């Protein structure tokens, strides 16, 4: 039986950050939390059975705020997941907010299969955090990192967002220095995406596009200098510390997704994405083996495009052999017009992979548009072999 990646969405937060467009709800009472966790466990079992998975390859608990679960709830969930983890389990991450970090929580993690904490720092600057609607302060974050430093035995990722309201180039660089100083082996550095529906849209202190560009590029430069590798558009890791779970997405491998708002991708008759409703009540209301999920069938041409869209984000690129197994063609053949019409150094092809060089990766959108056109205009005849 195979091992499969699993994403869990814990939709509860103490408060909503103003840039957030994930599904989240205020914290619930213990009883609701218990019902939620038991239902989550049932869904994990169900999806594992449906896909014939014997164990979990990687686990990522995200949200929302997973660290906001009660100790009891967290213990119950981790104990269950422990029964699904084996030698084959490569990585087990939990997203945490600094204000939730306590010696107890870290102790719980240390005694569980959890081996990676992803800490949502975003910035160390209290003003920037406040303008972004985050509850945490810079001091709280430092305190959390101190506890982690003293007690945590596993790996550590730090999430940083550039271009937050009130942020400056200098402040950004300062944040990066602090992030690296924590000893984290992985740093995700995201440009703020201003969703027009999010509360942050129109914030008067938002840096403009040019300023945000500068902040992000300064951060990137600093991380490279410090020996991090920019192995995916927004992700930086010390060699060997890449996120194994996230790589599954970019390689377009199948994965399970449980909890309201979570998305899964696996083959159930046809290739499809299975989206859980972003609505706890609706999700809970489903019958025995139903959680009111919606299924998005993915056509072969769409799936092909997604393989390019995701695969080209990473420095490892698209695995040519695996691609050939899936589509019966090598990737460079299917987008030769795009490759030929781009600067010669943009695409790199070797026996193992087709990838973009580090500059082209940052200007991927126009390339993706070209690739999309090329796929749409050609009528390749292929069957998809997946997973």
């Amino acid at each position, binding site marked *: 039986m195979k091992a499969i990646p699993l994403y869990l969405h814990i939709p509860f937060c103490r408060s909503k950050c103003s840039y957030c467009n994930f599904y989240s709800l205020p914290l619930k009472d213990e009883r609701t939390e218990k019902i939620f966790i038991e239902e989550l466990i049932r869904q994990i079992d169900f999806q594992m059975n449906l896909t014939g998975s014997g164990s979990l390859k990687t686990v990522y608990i995200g949200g929302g705020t997973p660290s906001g679960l009660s100790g009891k709830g967290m213990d119950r969930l981790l104990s269950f997941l422990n029964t699904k983890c084996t030698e084959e389990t490569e990585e087990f991450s939990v997203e945490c907010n600094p204000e939730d970090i306590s010696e107890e929580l870290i102790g719980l993690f240390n005694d569980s299969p959890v081996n990676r904490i992803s800490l949502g720092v975003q910035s160390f600057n209290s003003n920037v955090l406040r303008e972004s609607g985050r509850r945490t302060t810079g001091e709280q974050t430092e305190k959390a990192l101190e506890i982690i430093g003293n007690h945590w035995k596993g790996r550590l990722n730090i999430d940083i967002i550039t271009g937050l309201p009130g942020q400056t180039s200098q402040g950004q660089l300062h944040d990066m220095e602090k992030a690296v100083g924590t000893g984290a082996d992985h740093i995700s550095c*995201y440009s703020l995406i201003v969703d027009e529906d999010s509360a942050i849209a129109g914030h008067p202190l938002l840096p403009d596009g040019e300023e945000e560009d500068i902040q992000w590029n300064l951060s990137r430069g600093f991380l490279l200098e410090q020996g991090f590798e920019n192995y995916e558009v927004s992700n930086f890791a010390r060699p060997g510390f890449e996120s194994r779970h996230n790589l599954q997405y970019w390689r377009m491998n199948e994965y399970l997704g449980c909890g309201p708002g979570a*998305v899964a991708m696996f083959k159930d008759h046809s290739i499809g*994405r299975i989206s859980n409703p972003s609505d706890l009540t609706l999700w809970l209301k489903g019958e025995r083996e139903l959680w009111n999920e919606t299924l998005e069938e993915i056509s072969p041409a769409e799936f092909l495009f997604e393989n390019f869209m*995701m695969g080209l984000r990473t420095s490892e690129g698209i695995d040519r052999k695996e691609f050939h197994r899936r589509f019966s063609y090598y990737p460079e053949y299917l987008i030769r017009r795009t490759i030929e019409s781009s600067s010669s150094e943009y695409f790199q092809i070797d026996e193992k992979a087709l990838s973009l060089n580090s500059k082209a*990766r940052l*200007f991927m959108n126009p390339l993706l548009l070209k690739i*999309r056109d090329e796929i749409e205009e050609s009528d390749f005849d292929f069957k998809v072999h997946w997973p």
Partner: protein
Amino acid sequence: MNKDQSNIRNFCIIAHIDHGKSTLADRFLQKTHVVNDRNFQNQMLDSMDIERERGITIKSQAVTIPFQSKNGKEYELNLVDTPGHVDFAYEVSRAISSCEGALLLIDATQGVEAQTLSNMFMAMEHDLEIIPVINKMDLPSADLERVKHQIEHDLGLDSDMAFPISAKTGLGIDELMEGLVEWIPAPSGERSKPLKALIFDSHYDPYRGVVIHVRMFDGELKEGDNIKFMSNNADYTVEDVGVFKITLDKTGKLQAGDVGYFIAGIKNITDVRVGDTVTFKKNPCTEPCEGFREVKPVVFSSIYPIDTNQYQELHTAIDKLKLNDASLIYEKDSSAALGFGFRCGFLGLLHLEVVQARLEREFGLNIVLTSPSVQYRLTNMKGETYYLDNPAEYPDPGSIEKAEEPYIKAAIITPTEYLGNIMTLCMNKRGIQQEMNYLDEKRVEIFYEMPLAEVLFDFYDKLKSISRGYASFDYELHGFKETSLVKLDILLNGDVVDALSQLVFKDNAHDRGKAVCKKLKGEIPRQQFKIPIQAAIGNTIVARETISALRKDVTAKCYGGDITRKKKLLEKQKEGKKRMKMVGNVELPQEAFLAVLRTDED
């Protein structure tokens, strides 16, 4: 069967914009069950989406409404709906001359406005019986006595004749319709005379060719008749004749006094001119209908396809638009920056926007329009005079002896409290005040002579904003005056973009250059390289801005659950690209071309 001419009434509704013309037309249609309630939609006669959206009637429309009067007679009311914007004054005049009477609609909360006056004068010139109608009586702020006073004082009409109504609620509509058949005279044409019919509009039907809208003045028109147009002697055989009942209703015959349509296998709308007279090929009428003139455009701009491969499609589309829009003129044009396109003349800026919107919506084209320009009159050193509307053709300034620009006479009516601001605005637009009349203690009417170029672009918006919407505006062309012109060029990446060049009044050129550069900086998205923007007069750079280079163009976050959203974003980006024109190696958004005109900071 011959109809009794005395039971026909031909009328139009004239009003200032927003005074409720289309709503009143709707109410007539509903009252008389021309349209059943199920098929009814608001602004029934405004058949174009853009008309409903903007609340402006652009095309003339006609409809025949049956009406059973209390006096026992069955009437046939022909409502000729007229365009509601100064750009289309000629169309309005043709529609008006198709009628014997006009309902002069006045908003009970707003009172008499500039267009109310100008429309009334137009109706009077055509000897129409004018019935004042006071609309929006359902609103709490309706002020009947004030409007009645204005009708007496400003319009010189009998306010006792006025009908207070609410087109929205239907209040007073029955009384109005009775008044309409009582006061508006029946048409008086003679059926025995040779055919004489006025073309007041036409539209193109893809299956049947050009459908011509006519008002019959004398004689009869039947299927099979051989007819000709008096302006160009083109002759045709009539294939179909009928009246308007929202759709075309074939009757086989039209008689003196009727309003209706005919089809004569005409494929080319340029043969059909609004204002022209239709008569028999043999045995024609002696005199054409009065008032025919060639419509002269006042705003010029070139239209280019964003994708140069769409030139042919654009050509076909403009040809088709022209079928419905006799006032649109065009000729082939080419630009170093934009390739092949068309130089077009429009009746005004609204007309231009309508054409742009229709090319995009109805024909699915992605186009750019170059900076609109008025037509200048130049005199060269040899004393020869010629007209120029295309900045690209502006000659060596040394060869110009004299330059003149078109002027308008503007009429503005405003509450006195905004007078100061409006006078400042007009002065800034190089206006010269001609006259000022206090209509009453609260309202004043002022007349200005102003360069057309100054009012075309943002004058109306500004006027509305400084007067909180209370000032109204109307204008007519008023000859040429000497001016001092320069050509302002815009350079992107060091190259002149001919499509962005404009002819401007010399004293404004520096400020204009600065404003344009600034505006363009805001409109042009950052690209992978730095783009300098410069404004130049001849070889002198008068302004400069720089668009900094884009350092990344990639979605920051993309995990499993983001894929669908990311694909939608890409789709959006792709749509956006379709609206970008490559000029050299710079991508210019469509908006940039028109934005350079709206440079004033608000």
